[in-house]
Each structure stands twice: as C-alpha cells, then as structure tokens.
C-alpha cells in the first residue's frame, strides 16, 4: 500500500512540474487541415467527450448544420441536418487531436486555427479564432451572417494573423497572462486586458505584413471590439500545457474537463485518454435582456481547459468584476471561490499570481482525490447558449463540474493501481 502512495506522490509531483514548466507561445494561424492532417471531408470535431448526433443538444446540432453548409457539404441547414441524421458526418472530440473549441467547438478542415507551441516540451495545440459576441457559431448560431463572418475569418483574418505571427518570434503567453491577471482578467469570462495586450503585441507585425490599409483597418477593428478575442488563445494555451501531463502512471491530476451540452467529461493523467462522464449541469447565471433560465442550454464547451490550468473560476479573485457579471456574488465572494479551489488542487502557480490575494499563485493541478474527499466540485465560469439552434448566446454564469465524473475516475485509478 505504501508503494501505491509513493507512486501517486511521485507521479503527481511530475504532473505539477510539467504543468508549471510549460512555455506556451502563440506562433501561427493555419488551416485546421494543415494542423490536423486527419481532418478530412465530412469530419467534424466538437467540444466535450464523444457524442452522437442523436444525443446532441439544440445549439450543437445547429452548429453542426451550419458548419456543414460552410464547408460546402450541404446546400442548406435542413439538408445538413438530414445528412447528419443519416450518419454522413464523422464526429470526434477536439481533445483527441490536440485541439479545443469554445461552446459547440466546431473545428473543420478549412477553418483557421491558432497554433500554440509549448516550447518546454515541443507539443502544439490548436483552437479556432474567436468570432465575437452575439449570434455566433460557438453558441449555435448558423444563419448567413454567421457563415459570412466565418468566411472572413478563413479568407482574411486567419491568413493575416498567420503572416504577422510568422514574421515575429511569436507571442509568449505565460507573461502576457501574468499581466492580465494583475489587470482583472480570469481568462474565461473576462479577457479584456489580455485581448488588449495581445493586440498591442501584434499590431506592429500586422501593420508591416498586411499591405492593404482597408483590410488592416477591418482586422484591427475586429480584434479591438472583441473583449473575448483572447479566450480561444487561452484555451489553446491550456491544451498545450495539459497535453504533456497525459498518461503519467499513477497521477491523479485532471488533464481535461470538457462538456458537449449533454455530458460533462474529465480525463485524468494516470488514466490516459479515457473519458469519465456524467450528465452536464445547468449554469446558474445572469441573462441578457429578453432571456431567462428557461431559454438556457446546459453547460457546454472545451473552454473549461482554462479552469484545468488554474484560470477561469479558479482565478476568480483576480477578476472581482466577473463575479457580478456571472452572478457568482459580490466581489468579496470572488476571493472565497479561489480560496475554495485551493482545497482541491496540489499547487500554486508562482508565475500567475493574484494581487488581491497578496500575490498568491492561482490554484493549479486539480487532484481527483481531493475533489472526491471534500465534495468540492471545480467552479467554472461560462457563457450560456440558447437551447434552440440558431439563436446564440443568452447569458453568462457559473456551473460546477459534476462530482460523479471524479468518483468514477477515482475507482478507475484505484483499479489501475491495484488497490480495488
């Protein structure tokens, strides 16, 4: 028995070491098919653990139909839905391909993806470009305005960003996020500071590589008007940080938390790429004018990768304004939430600190043993999609990861280690 505990101690120490040693750098924007060679015609990567068309929620179905039209696999949304129902498309989780996607998380061959390289371990991770707020595909939007914007991302913004990044040495993300934390971001529901810092880092390279002033103006306006532009970069960064932690024998550290609008799934280092799932929870939040909880879709998206690395709900104390925005209570409650997340994590990140907590580091490396023992579920900040396809975002809130995922993972870890 003491050998098992020793294995766990050493494995978790290695998991923490790899997470904290990561050096994520935004280096490029390329077509998804170039980043992920397996992505072919009819293949759709989605958020969360694996799911079939039959079990998909409304906004996920809406996004699938929209992206199929966008890729030219169907002439209209109805035809796309019919094809999906007939099994014409192959659905796979983003996480299986070093990728992540917010909310519905659609990733297909022609979409541009941002490339984050973890220069400590050499692996790369990918995420599509943030579309902005309102009616967008990640929230299930799929009308002509949504598809037109996706085409602009593919044909204009993606190539321009890629060219600018390739002309530079890339953008080092660890220090940028550290500054963002001191400026009130938690990198899930608030990315105002990091989006601004990113634009500041990019603007000279964009100006020198984009020869068309009209296009440059449009690009700068698009990024500058989107407070959440950095979210997708933070997500790719999270994936780049956690992928090297996969498959450390005996480690009880969570390497992914993700939802597809139907199931919540986690992966655990010592259990490789196996998903442990439970029914997803409903967010508790605040709604845009004209909407209420009856319109809300259950929790969805790969964006919980930011909580997995200690940001988002785990870093709520850095962003007290978010506590109000997502209905999590008063600013003083924000500190309590971060303190509580310390109960279920193994370390603090000394490079990502929170001024309001006397520069304590964000809680890092969720330990399934601590989650099960304390009954404290990870706190997640999230956007809320309308439950019907085609509508888009209706609010923002907080949601807890279901404890059942962690309990079933703990049983599997016990079995893997030979103690059950």
């Amino acid at each position, binding site marked *: *028995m003491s050998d*098992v*505990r020793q294995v*766990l*101690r050493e494995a978790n120490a290695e998991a923490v070491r790899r997470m904290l040693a990561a050096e994520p750098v935004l280096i490029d924007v390329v077509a998804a098919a170039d980043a992920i060679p397996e992505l072919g015609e009819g293949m759709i990567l989605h958020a969360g653990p694996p799911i079939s068309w039959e079990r998909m929620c409304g906004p996920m179905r809406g996004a699938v139909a929209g992206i199929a039209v966008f890729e030219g696999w169907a002439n209209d949304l109805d035809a796309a839905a019919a094809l999906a129902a007939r099994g014409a498309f192959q659905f796979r989780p983003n996480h299986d391909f070093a990728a992540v996607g917010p909310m519905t998380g659609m990733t297909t061959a022609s979409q541009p993806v941002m490339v984050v390289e973890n220069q400590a371990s050499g692996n790369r991770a990918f995420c599509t470009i943030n579309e902005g707020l309102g009616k967008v595909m990640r929230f299930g939007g799929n009308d002509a305005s949504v598809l037109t914007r996706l085409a602009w991302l593919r044909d204009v913004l993606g190539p321009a960003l890629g060219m600018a990044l390739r002309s530079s040495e890339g953008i080092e993300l660890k220090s940028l996020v550290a500054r963002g934390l001191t400026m009130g971001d938690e990198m899930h529901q608030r990315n105002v500071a990091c989006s601004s810092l990113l634009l500041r880092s990019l603007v000279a390279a964009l100006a020198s590589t984009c020869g068309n002033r009209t296009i440059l103006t449009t690009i700068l306006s698009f990024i500058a008007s989107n407070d959440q532009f950095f979210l997708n970069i933070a997500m790719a960064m999270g994936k780049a940080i956690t992928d090297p932690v996969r498959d450390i024998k005996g480690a*009880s550290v969570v390497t992914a938390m993700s939802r597809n609008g139907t199931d919540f799934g986690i992966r655990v280092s010592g259990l490789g790429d196996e998903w442990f799932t439970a029914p997803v929870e409903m967010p508790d939040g605040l709604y845009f004018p004209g909407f209420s909880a009856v319109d809300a879709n259950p929790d969805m998206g790969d964006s919980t990768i930011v909580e997995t690395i200690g940001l988002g709900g785990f870093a709520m104390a850095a962003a007290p304004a978010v506590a109000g925005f997502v209905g999590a209570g008063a600013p003083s409650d924000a500190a309590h939430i971060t303190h*509580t997340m310390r109960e279920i994590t193994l370390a603090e990140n000394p490079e990502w600190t929170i001024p309001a907590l006397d520069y304590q580091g964000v809680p890092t490396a969720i330990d399934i*043993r601590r989650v*099960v*023992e*304390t*009954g404290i579920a990870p706190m997640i900040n999230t956007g809320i999609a309308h439950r019907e396809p085609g509508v888009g975002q209706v609010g923002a809130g907080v949601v807890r990861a279901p*404890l059942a995922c962690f*309990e079933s993972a*703990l*049983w599997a*870890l*016990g079995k893997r*280690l030979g*103690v*059950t």
Partner: protein
Amino acid sequence: MSKTSELPPAQSPLEVKATPVSLIQGSPRVVNVGLSGFAEALAAQGVAVIQVDWSPPARGDADLATLLSKLSD
C-alpha cells in the same frame, strides 16, 4: 518550552464552575461546523458566528472513503 514547575496553579473546582455562568451571561460566540443552516439562523438573530465548511469525506460514501484511504497520504 515551559517547565512543569512554571505552570500556573490549577483552577479550584469553584473557579471552574463559574465559567459556564459567564458564558450564559455574556453574548455567545459561535463556531458552526458543517451544515450552514445553523449558522445562518443564528446570524439572522444577530449572533456572531463563524461558519466552517465541512462535510463527511466522500459525501459519506463508505466505499469511496475506504478507497481514498488507500490512495491518500
């Protein structure tokens, strides 16, 4: 560390008895462990109370608690 001979003399039985009386006469100071409803009820009556979050390990699941004991330091 103090030597035993330096410790103050033990209280007499009479002094010990007086302690609960002073507790009742003064305002209670409460630490509530576990279910927060008790703390909230006291707070609603103006009683100063400190809430300590606690719940049985593994939400009271004996099998999970046993498993945890095998996997935890």
